């Protein structure tokens, strides 16, 4: 089944936003671009499961986050084989941002558990509603709200406390 015009055009238009979501989730541009590429290929291949006129952006975000979790599980398994302690630090890698405040913020975001990070990004930055975020994350609206609330509390703690210094310091090899 070939993608409709809506899907084709929507895919191209969605790329900047998919990259921003992927970068917010995984914190590494090479990995983020792999996620976006995989999302485009999958969306194209399974475009018959998308119904024109429904929420294309939410559909694409769902594909991307599912791919992220599946790759994350795979990477964690691979890393555990080598060194179990490394697994928890997989996504905590501040990128090349020009501004120190933004770097700190990205590092703090990377310290959140994935489900909290996902919730706060979808609602706080991507602009999805609770309902849409729940659909994307495959959970109840109440779960979205509690993850979001924990994410906000945790981020504030990290940004105000001193764990950022030690966490960032640890990652310098």
């Amino acid at each position, binding site marked *: 089944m*070939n993608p409709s015009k809506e899907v084709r055009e929507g895919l191209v*238009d969605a790329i900047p936003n998919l*990259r*921003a979501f992927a970068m917010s989730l995984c914190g590494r541009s090479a990995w983020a*671009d792999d996620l976006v590429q995989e999302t485009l290929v999958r969306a194209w291949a399974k475009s018959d499961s998308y119904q024109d006129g429904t929420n294309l952006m939410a559909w694409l975000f769902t594909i991307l986050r599912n791919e992220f979790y599946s790759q994350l599980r795979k990477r964690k398994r691979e890393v555990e084989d080598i060194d179990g302690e490394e697994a928890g630090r997989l996504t905590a890698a501040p990128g090349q941002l020009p501004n120190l405040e933004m770097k700190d913020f990205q590092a703090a975001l990377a310290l959140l558990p994935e489900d909290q990070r996902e919730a706060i990004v979808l*609602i*706080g930055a991507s602009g999805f509603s609770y309902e849409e975020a729940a659909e994307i994350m495959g959970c109840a609206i109440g779960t979205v709200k509690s993850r979001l609330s924990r994410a*906000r509390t945790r981020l504030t703690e990290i*940004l105000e406390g001193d764990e950022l210094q030690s966490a960032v310091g640890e990652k310098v090899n």
Partner: protein
Amino acid sequence: MTVLPRWESVKSGAIGFSFRLHSLRTGYGTVSKQQHETDPIIGDAVGSQLRSLYQDFASEAVPDRFMQLIEKLEKLEEVEEQARARGGDGASAEQAAGPEDGS
């Protein structure tokens, strides 16, 4: 399609305050406005840093590899269609479009 106006603003590079506010108020989807609740995150300091980071990512230039990928997918599809029109089974499509990863 309801998402288009906002995407126009992204494409033209005008990612700014109005884009963010608009998208945050309405969300991307087809859910009616009454069903949308806004979270306090939208107005607080953490929220504004988060959006600023996200917009930095979203405004980066899109690497060529993505447009090349779309072109490749389009081409593959064309070849498949031609094969179907000829009564073939599309088996030659992959060959004609080249390997999945050229690099």
